[in-house]
């Protein structure tokens, strides 16, 4: 059926023929009938990566295939969500090896974007924990791939944004935990320099991420709250929590039922929010025990929060700069502060070493922030791109809806290799998206 589709940023909107499947026979038939598909999971990428002329939704292909409770190995169909993984795994003492800032992501999407979490510096991205994948490729064949079997396909599929084919199933290693809680420490940093020192000082923590006020200027430039966490041990729990140490999350409480009018989010309300967020922590260092749901997914508690940005939607901008490019990071943050267009939550994190074919993470600083879509935004982001490019950094494809193909081609050094593998398994661009056309990967 022809439908108007948008991803999480509500921009762009594309009219697509959307089909779904719940058996391999059905997906093979669909792909044989029609050309130019792109797989789509929960549409949590922000931009145009899972949009196209023909969209294959994986959401009905969502069965768990096996769960080895002894060893924490799970295999699921690609439409199975991280939310569902948690529901099954947590009561048995297992947790996601890597998790993004929302649990409403499909396993197919987790692999195709090679997602990272707050533990990247210690435990790498999702592909580090992916044991094997089955995938229907553009040549009409179903392959199993892993680091050792069809390894070229595996490498190009992790972070490959669906361009090798439709991922059908994913087998991955879970992480052993003894409770579903996180012992967290929050440290206020008065400015960016202090924050970067703190990151270094606390790099042994499994989880770390900082919320940064991108609007503060002068001495307070880059004031932030560094959030650190470790999985809580049984012995640390008291009272009600101790009675149910492996408690699973519950459903979201709040829903934003419609798009907010555009005036709700403006530079004043955003500034106020940032001010309040920073000052909600009275003490310099705060320690507490939080449920994983609150620690990892604070925004999941508000269904459809993206509607706060109103009908025009918003763009998320996430880049990474090599560690030695602190000046570049400052330059970008300065531009944002000047422009007064910062977002609710700007998130800064230090990535550990990684040098994969097409995955986004590489060692350095990564900053992610939302901008409400306004007339002048696209030009402004082009300006930021220039700085990122000069610093040898790059942009996360899953958040992108607008970068130029020139910038993309110059910033992903192993692109040519990636394209060769895509051509091998997807020779006639049977799989392509609005994004892959825009960036001249498949065109």
């Amino acid at each position: 059926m022809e439908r108007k589709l948008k991803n999480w940023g509500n921009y762009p909107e594309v009219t697509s023929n959307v089909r779904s499947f719940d058996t391999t026979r059905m997906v093979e038939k669909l792909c044989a009938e029609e050309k130019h598909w792109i797989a789509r999971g929960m549409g949590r990428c922000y931009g145009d990566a899972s949009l196209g002329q023909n969209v294959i939704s994986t959401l009905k292909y969502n069965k768990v295939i096996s769960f080895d409770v002894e060893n924490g190995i799970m295999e699921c169909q690609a439409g199975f969500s991280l939310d569902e993984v948690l529901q099954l795994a947590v009561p048995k003492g297992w947790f996601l090896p890597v998790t993004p800032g929302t649990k409403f992501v499909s396993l197919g999407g987790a692999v195709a974007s090679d997602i990272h979490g707050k533990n990247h510096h210690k435990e790498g991205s999702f592909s580090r924990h992916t044991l094997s994948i089955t995938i229907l490729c553009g040549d009409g064949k179903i392959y199993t791939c892993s680091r050792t079997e069809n390894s070229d396909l595996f490498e190009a599929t992790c972070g490959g944004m669906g361009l090798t084919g439709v991922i059908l199933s994913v087998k991955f290693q879970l992480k052993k935990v003894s409770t579903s809680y996180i012992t967290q420490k929050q440290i206020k940093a008065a400015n960016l320099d202090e924050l970067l020192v703190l990151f270094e000082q606390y790099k042994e923590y499994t989880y770390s991420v900082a919320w940064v006020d991108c609007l503060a200027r002068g001495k307070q430039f880059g004031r932030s709250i560094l959030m650190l966490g470790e999985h809580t041990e049984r012995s640390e729990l008291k009272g009600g929590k101790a009675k149910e140490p492996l408690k699973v999350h519950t459903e979201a409480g709040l829903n934003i039922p419609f798009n907010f009018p555009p005036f709700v989010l403006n530079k004043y309300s955003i500034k106020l929010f940032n001010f309040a967020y920073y000052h909600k922590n009275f003490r310099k260092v705060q320690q507490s025990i939080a449920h994983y749901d609150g620690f990892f997914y604070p925004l999941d508690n508000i269904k459809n929060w993206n509607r706060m940005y109103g009908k025009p939607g918003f763009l998320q901008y996430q880049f990474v700069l090599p560690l030695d490019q602190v000046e570049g990071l400052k330059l970008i943050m300065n531009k944002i502060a000047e422009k007064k267009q910062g977002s609710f939550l700007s998130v800064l994190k230090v990535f550990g070493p990684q040098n994969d074919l097409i995955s986004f993470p590489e060692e350095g600083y990564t900053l992610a922030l939302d901008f409400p879509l306004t007339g002048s935004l696209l030009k402004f982001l082009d300006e930021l791109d220039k700085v990122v490019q000069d610093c040898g950094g790059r942009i996360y494809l899953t958040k992108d809806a607008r970068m130029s193909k020139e910038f993309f081609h110059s910033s992903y050094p192993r692109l040519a290799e990636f394209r060769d593998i895509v051509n091998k398994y997807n020779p006639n661009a049977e799989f392509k998206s609005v994004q892959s056309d825009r960036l001249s990967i498949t065109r």
Partner: protein
Amino acid sequence: MKTVLLLGATSDIGQALADKYAKEGYTVWLAGRNVQHMQDIATDLKIRHEASVEYFRFEALDYLSHQKFYNDLPGTPDVAICIFGYLGDQEKAEKELEECQNILDTNYKAAVSILNIVANSYEESGTGTIIGISSVAGDRGRQSNYFYGSAKAGFTAYLAGLRNRLFKHNVHVLTVKPGFVDTKMTEHLELPAPLTAQPQKVANAIFKAARKKNNSIYVLGIWWLIMAIIKSIPEPIFKRLKL
């Protein structure tokens, strides 16, 4: 432990029902024509809900096989739900007898064939619940889908008769008219979102209605109103409408 038999278990509504009944602690018997698919569903239910699940090959149009299929089940299910169905292609059915027969046979004849067997078994044991998924399309014939609609109308009438017959034998019969549901059957159609239910919602409503021993339900309340209006339009006017 109670047992539910799902006839047409690989349908979207069937899968949602399987999940709901498994979650509620029922033993689930899946019946359908795609064995591989049922195996995947069974594995999933076992892991998700630690449920006891079995599956059985069932071809709705092979009437002669129905008695044996039923006899070969490991026991008598407490609840039997007839879910399979075929929307078909209205225009094709107007011209080709085979398509027409497929629609009538799947939605009416096959359902009657298997439920006769279940009904006789329940009458004898003096207990059980029979649930039939019919359709609002059976409430009044319309040019856009009257083959499907008339077969479902027949099925609705059949279920009403069965209810009447089995009431005194302590057997409950529930007729379900789901309205639009977002499933494989309707994926190619443009359905108005406010009138369209998700399969999970249908499954929850069925489970609840069966427990409350309702006779007939629409899943979304609004459908009762819509069908009341559609049924009340006088035929001289109705026949001129494009519905």
